[in-house]
């Protein structure tokens, strides 16, 4: 079978009626490449402005692209759905084996609609979908156990992905995540709650198909080139210490968010740094499929039971920069083992680490300032007190009182109810990743389609300005830089690449590798399609009610100095105004075409 053509197969699954069907969507894949390009269009077809994110009308879309399963580091699946955290179209990516499994099951995308009356999980194997009773795994305390049970109950070891939610998703915590292969996640924007609302505990995809390559000789040549580059200096940083390599440099720069963004420097940074974690706790490194980098760092914690001497347990905990910021420096936690235990709790419950950390940081400050008391929190919150935070994490999921119910809705809702908006750190209700690098980063959080640090990687633009001793550019210029980068990333996310490979996959190599598979794109095509996907996404968001001038800018962000100085409110406002105008312009010029 022609390899390229199988990408356009889309598997539709209806959880209400428990049926499935396959459609050939060549119309979408030939126009929008794959990944986010295609997922955006599928979203447009399925979801309306009025769709309630937790109703059966919301959909879960998984999409992969032409590079998936073929080239090194094309290892990511794009998930698109309406976010229960903020009501806008959301995008979240995960690696593990998810992408290769979907591709080798013979699909370019999967669309899951409706909702089941009772807990189910689905198994996608070749051209069949099975709906299985999830009664036995619903409500399990640890999402890890869920993975273990499914691993042993199902076939396809080494060729499958097991996506599952924890109790947080079941109980509709708005920032619940979906875990794949135990240590990777569709982390952000609450996909876990959408699973939960559909009574969908897990999605297992087994991919065991094989396809003939169109042109072996040119394929091998480009493959070798990409393989050598992906294991070279361009990915070194992720290779050695992994993303936690960022802790010390960001702290030195004064950009490591600390105690709810009240400072950019954390006195305990050394203790929770990538270096220290590697020295003391690193147990194993793991890779996503087709990735020579192996950025997944697993630490171990060895602990003696309090109840019985000489009885030990050894547990594994994944760590990454964002978790160290959100659950470490931003909560004032400098006890390394304590931090790892917080991460473990977040993993077991199936929560997004960033949102959880920012919510708890707000709660700690609100407690300090007397906006809430032990009546709400059930025990005192103090910076660095990791034991309290672990309790709080379970309480966010179990929701024993009104306060924790509200915490489960995100920091914006919490501040609306209890006050302290000025230190509730969120843009468009989304708690941010950990870079207080300068104005470009914060603007990008406000206007990026995903509300993610990865929309444009604008923290790195700030860092470059700092390194070269320059000031931030005019706000208009800043917005242009952000739009340009975000537009190009639409191509990488349609291919679909891990963004850690963005330095390797230049425009030239993207074109060359696609050519080896029989796709004929030139640079102009790609730049145009990237911009078009960008516009499509921003158009959808506008229809869903997004207005840049309505965005709440947390005061705290303006008060705490960045390496580029204090951010002026005026600068951000100007940038947001310009963004609105710019999108109007692009949209009207498209319509007149």
């Amino acid at each position: 079978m022609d390899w390229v053509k199988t990408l356009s197969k889309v598997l539709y699954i209806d959880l209400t009626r428990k049926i499935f069907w396959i459609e050939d969507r060549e119309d979408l894949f030939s126009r929008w490449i794959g990944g986010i390009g295609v997922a955006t269009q599928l979203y447009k077809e399925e979801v309306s402005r009025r769709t309630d994110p937790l109703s059966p009308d919301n959909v879960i879309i998984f999409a992969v692209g032409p590079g998936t399963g073929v080239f090194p580091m094309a290892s990511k699946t794009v998930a698109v759905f309406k976010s229960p955290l903020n009501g806008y179209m959301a995008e979240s990516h995960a690696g593990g084996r998810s992408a290769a499994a979907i591709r080798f099951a013979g699909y370019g995308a999967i669309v899951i609609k409706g909702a089941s009356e009772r807990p189910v999980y689905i198994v996608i194997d070749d051209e069949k979908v099975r709906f299985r009773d999830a009664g036995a795994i619903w409500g399990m305390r640890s999402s890890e156990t869920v993975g273990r049970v499914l691993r042993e109950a199902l076939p396809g070891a080494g060729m499958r992905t097991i996506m599952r939610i924890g109790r947080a998703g079941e109980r509709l915590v708005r920032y619940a995540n979906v875990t794949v292969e135990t240590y990777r996640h569709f982390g952000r924007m609450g996909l876990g709650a959408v699973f939960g609302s559909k009574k969908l505990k897990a999605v297992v995809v087994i991919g065991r198909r094989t396809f003939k390559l169109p042109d072996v000789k040119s394929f091998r040549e480009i493959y070798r080139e990409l393989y050598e580059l992906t294991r070279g200096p361009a990915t070194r940083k992720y290779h050695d210490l992994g993303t936690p390599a960022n802790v010390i440099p960001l702290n030195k720069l004064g950009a490591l968010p600390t105690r709810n963004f009240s400072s950019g420097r954390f006195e305990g940074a050394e203790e929770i740094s990538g270096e220290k974690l590697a020295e003391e706790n690193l147990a194993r490194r793991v890779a996503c499929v087709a990735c020579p980098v192996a950025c997944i760092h697993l630490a171990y914690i060895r602990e003696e039971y309090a109840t019985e001497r000489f009885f030990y347990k050894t547990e594994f905990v994944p760590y990454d920069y964002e978790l160290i910021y959100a659950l470490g420096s931003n909560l004032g936690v400098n006890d390394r083992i304590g931090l790892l235990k917080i991460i473990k709790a977040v993993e077991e419950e199936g929560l997004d680490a960033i949102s959880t950390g920012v919510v708890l940081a707000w709660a700690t400050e609100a407690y300090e300032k007397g906006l809430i008391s032990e009546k709400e929190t059930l025990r005192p919150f103090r910076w660095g007190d990791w034991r309290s935070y672990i309790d709080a994490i379970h309480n966010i999921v179990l929701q024993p009182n009104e306060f924790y119910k509200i915490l489960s809705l995100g920091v914006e809702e919490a501040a609306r109810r209890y006050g302290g908006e000025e230190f509730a750190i969120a843009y468009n209700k989304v708690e941010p990743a950990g870079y207080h690098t300068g104005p470009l980063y914060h603007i990008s959080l406000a206007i990026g389609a995903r509300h993610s640090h990865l929309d444009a990687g604008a923290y790195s633009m700030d860092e470059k300005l700092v390194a070269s001793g320059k000031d931030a550019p005019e706000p208009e210029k800043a917005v242009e830089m952000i739009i340009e980068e975000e537009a190009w990333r639409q191509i990488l996310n349609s291919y679909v690449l891990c963004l850690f490979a963005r330095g390797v996959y230049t425009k030239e190599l993207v074109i060359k590798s696609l050519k080896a598979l029989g796709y004929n794109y030139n640079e102009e095509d790609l730049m145009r399609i990237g911009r078009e996907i960008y516009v499509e996404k921003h158009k959808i968001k506008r229809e869903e009610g997004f207005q840049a001038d309505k965005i709440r800018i947390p005061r705290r962000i303006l008060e705490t100095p960045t390496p580029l100085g204090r951010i002026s409110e005026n600068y951000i406002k100007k940038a947001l105004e310009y963004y609105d105008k710019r999108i109007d312009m692009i949209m009207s010029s498209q319509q007149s075409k």
Partner: protein
Amino acid sequence: MYKRLVVMDPNMCVGCQLCMEACSNRFGYVGPTKSAIYVRSAGGVERGFVIIVCRACKDPPCARVCPTDALSLRPGGGVILSPGRCIGCGNCVSACDIGAVMWDYDTMKPLICTHCGYCVGFCPHNVLALEEVA
């Protein structure tokens, strides 16, 4: 001098499966089921990985159970498949206790490592190597 593929240290394996990709690619395919080498987790990735590949037995059980002599002894260990003789009975698959005789569902015949070493060049952590056989 003949060579055979060896697993140097499974603890260095990160589970990227680039060796599987390489094996499929070598014969003009993509996908996990055209590979004569197979990597899966040892029951959760934190426990590491299992790397299953032909160990080039000097006295291979797979050859002994073949009813049509389709598997002949390879100098240096292991076997060579003569597809013309193979009737696809699958005896060889059951005879290999380490599970290293894979199955090709397109041809309905076994998929057998030729110890060519192409995968070695794509193992980023030197888990695999080609070793000279005395």
